[in-house]
């Protein structure tokens, strides 16, 4: 156990990767509960793809440092366009999302395909470069985390009211439009912060799976949030450790981001099985009574 789960992180680059993944896992797990309650999985997936052109343009304009800001601008543009598009009555939200997602992503693909390192750049964006996280990046992630957590703590009551009963929330004086903008901003911030480390395709897993697994185990929000956060962080740790161990000791190169997601999925399956066992248990008691 020690050899697999502790030893690899003696190396500074592994320790930084671990810190980044665990922070992001906990953050995404927490925000994921909001996504679950609002049923925003599709919008989240769209956001993970639409930041791609921002990443590319940011990189082309000012190198590594431009990535974060490019992604942020693209994320904001998505949120605004999506709100405008769904006002049109003939455009359903899912169609609008699908068109936005693919068009934005395609712009990124076209821009990247002009560059020489086409495949390498695309791969980095899709699957992240967790092992090259710098101390500056870690600081950035911490700042985003603080900002997002602060927003969620302050807005927790109106956000919950709006998720449960939009009409009631409107009636009691909350501004639904502003709350939705806040929600989209929170999700976009998490996506932007994690995209460079874990890659676009895997952010969606971090944002959806821990919360869904927590929801299977409990129906109390006070438990779901911490369970999701812990599961997200744990999956980051275990996935990183397993992929490291496989490549060093068994000669099997496993992409670390993908391994993290598979650990998450395994956690979800365990949660489903556990819930099934718990639900089965009271039955014989009832029959005996």
């Amino acid at each position, binding site marked *: 156990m020690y050899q697999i789960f502790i030893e690899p992180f003696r190396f500074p680059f592994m320790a930084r990767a671990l810190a980044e993944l665990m922070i992001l896992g906990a953050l995404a797990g927490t925000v994921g509960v909001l996504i679950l309650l609002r049923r925003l999985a599709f919008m989240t997936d769209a956001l993970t793809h639409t930041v791609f052109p921002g990443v590319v343009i940011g990189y082309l304009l000012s190198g590594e440092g431009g990535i974060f800001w490019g992604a942020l601008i693209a994320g904001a543009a998505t949120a605004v366009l999506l709100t405008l598009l769904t006002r049109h*009555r*003939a455009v*359903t939200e899912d169609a609008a999302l699908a068109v936005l997602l693919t068009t934005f992503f395609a712009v990124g693909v076209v821009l990247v395909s002009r560059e020489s390192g086409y495949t390498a750049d695309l791969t980095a964006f899709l699957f992240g470069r967790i092992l090259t996280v710098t101390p500056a990046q870690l600081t950035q992630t911490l700042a985003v985390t603080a900002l997002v957590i602060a927003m969620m703590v302050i807005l927790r009551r109106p956000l919950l009211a709006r998720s449960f009963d939009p009409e009631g929330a409107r009636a009691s004086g909350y501004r639904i439009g502003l709350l939705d903008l806040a929600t989209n901003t929170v999700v976009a911030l998490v996506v932007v912060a994690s995209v460079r480390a874990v890659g676009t395709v895997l952010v969606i897993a971090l944002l959806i799976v821990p919360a869904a697994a927590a929801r299977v185990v409990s129906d109390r929000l006070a438990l779901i949030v911490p369970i999701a956060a812990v599961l997200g962080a744990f999956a980051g740790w275990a996935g990183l450790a397993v992929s490291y161990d496989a490549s060093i000791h068994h000669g099997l190169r496993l992409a670390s981001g993908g391994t993290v997601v598979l650990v998450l999925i395994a956690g979800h399956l365990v949660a489903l099985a556990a819930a099934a066992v718990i639900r089965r248990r009271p039955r014989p008691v*009832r029959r005996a009574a």
Partner: protein
Amino acid sequence: METTPEPQVPPPALDLDEVTVAYGPALALENIDGMVAPGEAVALIGPNGAGKSTLIKAILGLVPLAGGRISVLGRSPAAARRDVAYVPQADTLDPEFPISVGQVVLMGRYRRIGWLRRAKAADKEAARRALEQVGLADRARHRFGTLSGGQRQRVLLARAIAAEPRLLLLDEPFNGVDAVSEQALLDAIALLKQDGAAVVVSTHDLALAHLACEEVCLLNRRQYGFGPTQATLTPDRLRATYGGHALELRGDRVIVAHS
């Protein structure tokens, strides 16, 4: 010598025998009994969640019975499907769906048209007549979603009429419907009854039950009465059905207040 033909007794349009429906361990309906003859209408009356929709689904054969038996026109619900038409609540349908009123009504003929064949002139004629019966013949080319709520409900009734049913099931057809549409719905239902179709309609509206139905079934998971409208809609029975607290009496009128 002329021999008089043996008088044939048609089977009842609907025969409920100790019908029990369960969702998991919870009973949604328990021991419902009753019979509806051709040309008659029965109102299902009870509070929200009383099992009215469940009973309609059971008559359609869409939920399994935990006990008892349902026979429709002397057959099992599944076997009688072709002679049964169902009218859902209009506001459960997407108003943005790209479909015309005429197309919606023609859906009532799909079972007859089959999979591969094109709609025949007779099918189109039946759809046109049905739309005329609900007073919306001039709206055939409009998009379904551009109509008012009451008009949409009438289109859905026209769809059911086009299917030439012998048993018609309506789920809360009068909810949020304007006075003109309400009258159009009542007229169309009366016409169907004249032609020998039986009607089952779930509703909150006791006045409409008096207007449209010979019989009522008082329902709140259990059955609190089944019989002629006037005799069955008594204050005591209604109080029992609605749990007693949400009821007011003024002379011979009964008002059920919903929380």
